[in-house]
């Protein structure tokens, strides 16, 4: 079965809806003859503003709908597809609502927040289209848990074998086994890089230290170093996976709070406009 992305959902149904909505708004804007100049307070301004506000509330409702697993109002994919496309159309509608009147005020604050929410959402779509493929390519048939278990096995094996190696090499292995970690900080998760990783350090330091070995020790060294490289490679894959997951998560840490800020700014905008009607 071919995989359809949320963008293609129901043969671009929501894309078409968004285009129609935007074109209708643009046509109305061009046709409209405002009393002095286009702005939010003309009848068209109020109409576009109302549509925009209702759209914002509906887009926010997606956060509720996607958690309602038993809901039967459409599929979550459908909702997401509509969320993405109508969220994009929102920019057109709200921009026309402003009549391109911007300034240092709460109304423009709401507008900018709306833009930021939509932009972060667009970035989210981009991430959702790009990252899962990279995740599959990175992990293949493995899972993160399996990788971690296999690293544990490697650790035991590596340590047992390393007993026969000189102290400095054993110390490298020992630190790799006992101090290597995954995640634990924002930067490590988002960049996928652990600057102090003892395993990476061991991989780098090993060749120089093992050069002096000969005979049986040298053979053992080759074995252990092979294991170390395997472990290092697995760690890199695990870290890349964590990075992918963090990136899939990260934009939401902007998208959601910004959306709530937008909701607040929208309330401020509407209430303040009608207080000073």
């Amino acid at each position: 079965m071919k995989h359809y992305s949320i963008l293609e959902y129901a043969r671009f149904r929501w894309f078409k809806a968004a285009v129609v909505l935007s074109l209708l708004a643009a046509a109305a804007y061009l046709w409209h003859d405002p009393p002095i100049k286009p702005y939010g307070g003309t009848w068209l301004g109020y109409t576009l503003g109302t549509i925009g506000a209702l759209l914002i509330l509906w887009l926010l409702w997606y956060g509720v709908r996607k958690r309602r697993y038993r809901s039967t109002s459409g599929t979550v994919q459908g909702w997401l597809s509509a969320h993405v496309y109508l969220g994009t159309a929102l920019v057109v509608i709200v921009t026309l609502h402003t009549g391109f009147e911007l300034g240092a005020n709460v109304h423009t604050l709401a507008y900018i927040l709306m833009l930021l929410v939509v932009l972060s959402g667009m970035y989210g779509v981009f991430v959702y289209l790009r990252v899962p493929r990279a995740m599959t390519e990175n992990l293949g048939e493995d899972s993160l848990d399996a990788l971690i278990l296999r690293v544990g096995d490697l650790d035991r094996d590596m340590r047992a074998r390393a007993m026969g190696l000189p102290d400095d090499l054993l110390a490298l292995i020992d630190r790799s086994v006992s101090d290597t970690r995954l995640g634990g900080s924002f930067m490590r998760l988002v960049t996928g890089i652990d600057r102090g990783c003892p395993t990476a350090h061991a991989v780098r330091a090993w060749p120089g230290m093992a050069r002096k070995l000969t005979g049986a020790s040298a053979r053992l060294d080759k074995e252990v170093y092979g294991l170390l490289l395997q472990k290092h490679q697995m760690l890199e894959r695990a870290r890349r996976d964590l990075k992918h997951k963090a990136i899939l998560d990260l934009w939401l840490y902007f998208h959601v709070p910004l959306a709530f800020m937008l909701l607040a700014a929208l309330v401020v905008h509407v209430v303040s406009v009608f207080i000073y009607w």
Partner: protein
Amino acid sequence: MKILVTTKVGRGQVRKTVSGDWLRVGRNTSCEIHLPDPRVPLEQGMIVYRDGLVYMEGEAGSQVITRRSVRSERMHYGEPLAVGPYRIEMTPPPPGFDAALRVELVHPLEAAPALAARASELTLGSLGLTKRWAAWLWALAVLLIFLVVPMGRVLDLPWRGASQTALFGDKFWNPGPVTLAHQPIEPKCSACHEMAFQHVKDRACLECHKNIGHHVGPEMKPAAMFEGARCATCHREHKGVKATHRDDDRFCVSCHQDLKSHAAGATAARVSDFARDHPAFRVTLDEDGGKRRVRQGDAPVAQQTHLKFPHATHLDPKGVKSPVQGRIRLDCSNCHKPDASKRGFEPISMPRQCQECHTLQFEPAVTTREVPHGKVADALTVIEEFYANLALKGTPDSFQKAFGVPGEGLLRRVGDPSPAERQNALALASRKARQVGADLVEVRVCKTCHEIASVKSAQSTEWKVAPVRQNMSFMPHARFDHQAHRQTKCASCHDVQSSKSSADVAMPTIKACRECHGGSRPIEGKVMSNCLLCHGFHDATHPWNPNPARPVTKVAEATHAR
């Protein structure tokens, strides 16, 4: 010799037979006693046979144990040695062996926690990053700073005082700049926005704009005509510094293109665009019965002036004869002087503009004196006094020229004049004065310009000069600025070159205006001209009545009920 090494591994044990005089002890797999523990050096020590087993250990890091041993212990049964975490004990050898050793790990290494234990914080969420709290926090901050605090003042909430001094007051609610004239009151929202959740009332506007005129007079019943309209219906503030209304024809045309259906009593003709659809101008004439508006058309419009003034004669290209300057060519500016505003002109005044040529001399043979311009009686009095004076004091020369008979002033003669002589002199002077006065008024001077009626009675003749009507405003409702049109010749609009009568109204027709002025749409070579270029909406001749019997607008009604 043969040594049996028994190593305890878990619950079982591993036996190993070693042949030789010595056994190496260490982590290395090549050691005969292999102690696989990271706490044990690669080669820890040796057990050698010297009349019994002796355990020896070298200096830390040195593998040359035999030469520089730091520990050397002879082994006895029942006295195990501690080697790192291990215990090595000599046991009685089973048959066939020379010695036996038992190795046991007594302090096992605590197993290093697996990677899984150090991989607990694998998601952003597990780091304590939060979407929900951030969302609520930011949202509340926005609500607090931009809504709750600022609305204290307008909604009269307990923190009213704070909201006036707060950094983030209601100034952030201002959606855009106000017009220049309103900028002094811009920081004070309540100057216009008096009540929360209510439209700005007309009252707020009229606080300053007291003298604003209504669009139509009371006879047109403006209350019904503009029902529901507010100042803000047309005037939108916060839309830039230039204007509060749109400078185009939309508002005007919406009614005036079919005015009758909006106002039955309206006399204005339908109009939708100056260039394409605008009626001929109406000229306001000042007549005996009052003002009268006449639409320009095919027939020339005449304004009754009671003045004889042919523009054609005065603008004769050959010039006119001036008693002072000889023959001169006049142009418009010789007589028509701009007023202080430069938009219009000063009224024509006889002494200023006419009298230099049209002198009011009455006895030029004797004097350059002129009668005053004004009442006929005053002029006649001056004449009478002049001749009386001449009859009394005149030199023989003047006397001869004035009266046409030889003689001299009565008082110049020697001796007191007799009563008969007095009578004669007075009669002479009076007769001459009457004769000159009649000639001045009816023939020579006044009649030149004025319409004069003579009322004859038995004793005397009285003259009535028809009052001159000088109409200074033929189009009082039009905004016209002569200064703005100064690059144009007067004659382009006012055709007086061939006018033989002062009754000719030389106001330009719409055709003349249209040569330069287009309509509401841009046309090449024409000035785009909308209604408000020439017309005003608020007509000062219909003052806005702040206390009408029936309020002007619905909103105003609510306002005045308070």
